[in-house]
């Protein structure tokens, strides 16, 4: 043997650069959110508690929809049926909760979450077994769930126990921390955090990033994709329940806007539509930004319909920019 070889340390990207690329977008979205807050306060005539409540009502369902979409997109899929499944949960819970006590309502919520998890898994199974693209299957499911929602309840009605609504509208004790924020954080901490750093969560990223490499690393690709849809189902269920809690009523059409908005929040939140990249914190912030910008428009006296226009245009804009950035980093 020749002289002992010198040690080689591979130099990669600098840590700050890597962190900037990995987390820069998320941080930027949070900064945008922070920047919006004082502006929002300066426009509002109401006291803070009332305002927070108004934001929570709008933001809570969207946060969950964004989390559901984020998990599925990270795994390399997309779910167009999120909005209409939220509608199903909304009418189903409002129809039955109206006469329930708070405890019963909570138990019923758990049951619903189990059902939505199964529904998500069902969608995932159709996709992996039939090999029809995600988009087609979930487009079909969009209509199926819309029909189911109409079947359960044709015109808005039902309700939820006051205490249940308080979960979305109230605040912790007498402080200014909205319950809605706590609910989102708890769901995030209980459902996603444990997965994120363990094998199942990593597998979701792996499958979205590169299916071949994931398979060679010993991951059950189909199983993981179904699991992602199932997890998405859980978050979708939470979103539907949030709709019930925040609006206090069941409406079969309440969910329709959430499909597109969830995709927008995911893209704005730094999750690449090709999969494998991003997290849930970004989409949560993006959901808040989307909600906040709409509320600000309303506070400024803009016609609510214009708010829709701005939002639609913003979504397209964000997706275009996101696509251009993705193309640039790839080449």
């Amino acid at each position, binding site marked *: 043997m020749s002289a002992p070889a010198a040690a080689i340390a*591979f130099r990669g*990207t600098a840590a700050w650069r890597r962190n900037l690329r990995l987390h820069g977008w998320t941080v930027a979205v949070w900064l945008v959110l922070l920047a919006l807050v004082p502006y929002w306060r300066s426009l509002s005539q109401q006291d803070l508690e009332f305002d927070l409540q108004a934001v929570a009502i709008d933001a809570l369902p969207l946060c969950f929809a964004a989390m559901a979409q984020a998990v599925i997109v990270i795994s390399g899929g997309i779910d167009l049926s999120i909005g209409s499944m939220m509608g199903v949960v909304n009418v189903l819970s409002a129809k039955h909760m109206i006469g329930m006590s708070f405890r019963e309502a909570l138990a019923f919520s758990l049951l619903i979450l189990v059902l939505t998890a199964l529904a998500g898994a069902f969608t995932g199974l159709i996709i992996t077994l039939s090999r029809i693209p995600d988009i087609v299957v979930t487009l079909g499911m969009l209509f199926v769930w819309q029909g189911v929602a109409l079947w359960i309840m044709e015109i808005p009605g039902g309700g939820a126990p006051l205490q249940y609504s308080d979960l979305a509208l109230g605040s912790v004790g007498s402080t200014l921390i909205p319950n809605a924020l706590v609910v989102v954080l708890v769901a995030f901490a209980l459902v996603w955090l444990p997965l994120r750093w363990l094998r199942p969560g990593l597998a979701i990223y792996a499958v979205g990033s590169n299916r071949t490499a994931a398979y060679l690393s010993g991951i059950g690709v189909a199983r993981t994709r179904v699991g992602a849809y199932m997890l998405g189902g859980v978050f979708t269920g939470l979103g539907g329940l949030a709709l019930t809690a925040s609006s206090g009523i069941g409406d079969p059409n309440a969910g329709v806007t959430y499909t597109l908005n969830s995709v927008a929040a995911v893209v704005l939140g730094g999750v690449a539509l090709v999969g494998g990249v991003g997290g849930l914190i970004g989409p949560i912030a993006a959901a808040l930004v989307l909600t906040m910008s709409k509320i600000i428009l309303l506070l400024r006296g803009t016609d609510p319909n214009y708010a829709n226009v701005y939002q639609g245009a913003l979504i397209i804009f964000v997706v275009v920019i996101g696509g251009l950035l993705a193309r640039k980093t790839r080449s």
Partner: protein
Amino acid sequence: MEGAVFRPLRVSCNGMSKQTAALLEARGVAKHYGPVAALRAADLSVAPGEIHALLGANGAGKSTLVKCLSGVIRPDTGTISFGGRAVRARSPMHAARLGLAPVFQDPALVPDLSVTQNLRLTGMPLGRVRAELAAMELSVNFNEQVGDLALPVLRMLDLARALARDPQLLILDEITAALPSDLAERVFAVMRERREKGRSVLFITHRLAEVIAICDRATILRDGRDVGTMVPREGGEARIVEIMLGPEAARAEARAAELSEDDVAVAPDARERPDAVAADAVLELDGLRAGNVQELSLRIAAGEVVGVAALEGQGQDELFEVLAGERKPESGEVRLRGKPFRARHPYDAIRKGVVLVPPDRLLALLPQRSVRENVAAPHYSTPLRWGPINMRDEGRRVRHAVDALQIDMRAARQVRRLSGGNQQKVTIARWLASGFTTLLCNDPTRGVDVGTKRQVYTLLRELAADGAAILFFSSELAEFPLVCDRVLTVYGGRVTAELPGPAADEASLLQAMHGLDLEEAVA
């Protein structure tokens, strides 16, 4: 002696000093994809404590065999026994648990996760991998995203991950192809270390010098079969190349004869026009760099077929991509008829008469459409021709191309129902119908039958005789002398040798393609 070398080969492996039971024993392993045989019937035996090389030209079945062994794909037939027990790995993970750890050509690491996360994904203790890296005197920042790491680093990581399992058999599929020499040295050190520990290594490579230097035995595949097992140190590179070519020299000739048969044979005088070259160079490349292409220069004249012979990944794909408008060159100059040639989109190249027959038919066919639509498609690419079609005119052009290639039109309704050979003809026919001056053929006969091959050769010669300039790559070396006026061998992105067409026999090509000196081969 020369003739006798080959038959006793298998005997010689029996005659090895250690007559212990083999660690890995594969018998008659075969794998078909549809009608294509990727692996016909391969035997492989690896003894405990040996470094065993698996050799063969492109498409000989090396990678398929490795995938069968490591559980990525299931062989159609054949038995594999490992450590004396019959096994059938269900997945790469299962294989790893059995003690058979593969390092694949493409890194099995997920690009969007960090190194730590990737290791956690496979349930591999970080410490063990770090220790293996440290043993190779390497250090990698485990917080790094895999997508940010250079290919050589990934190979070393993959290797360390495989080593951390301390497998009975380590399978290295062309690991050195992407490694600089200092890292390759470390891999060799690891391999020797494994041997000292009584573990085995199965080593796949194109670099014959490496085989001679460290491998105890070598099994050579050809056309999906094992054609010999030998002790590389005793034979040397020349002998390995001979075995790659086939046991009898006559076989190669028979093959050539089979491919060219008199009636379609290339007219010899068509090739005897070396002086025509300088006169009107159609396409000139000067110091081109793009991906694996390093400083590549060549020129093609009208009426000339220039061959490019290379092992996999030596830059030939990038060369074709640049010329076809699919890839931007990093530097260097391309001239077409003396004018600078730059194609940002295939459309630009096609408009200037430079057209591509890609290596994979699926890249060029509209599988659900008819032969007629496929052949006519390039004609309508510009919006100026989006109006009504002159059906009679189109019919004439298509028929001309179909006749020239004798495409079987019985299943012409959908191209995907045609045989592979006919599909391949369609990819060429569309350029006949639309016209061109320079034809780029990237492996135009891959996976097609002998009859079709002969037609393609004849056609290429006829096209050249009509004044077309043709750049030709093939993974089948026997084709070069039949088709080409000149053959350039490319190794490491550079032209290593130029041979006149008739002199480009398989032996010389193989030598030059492996980066060896031609003189040596002749000697």
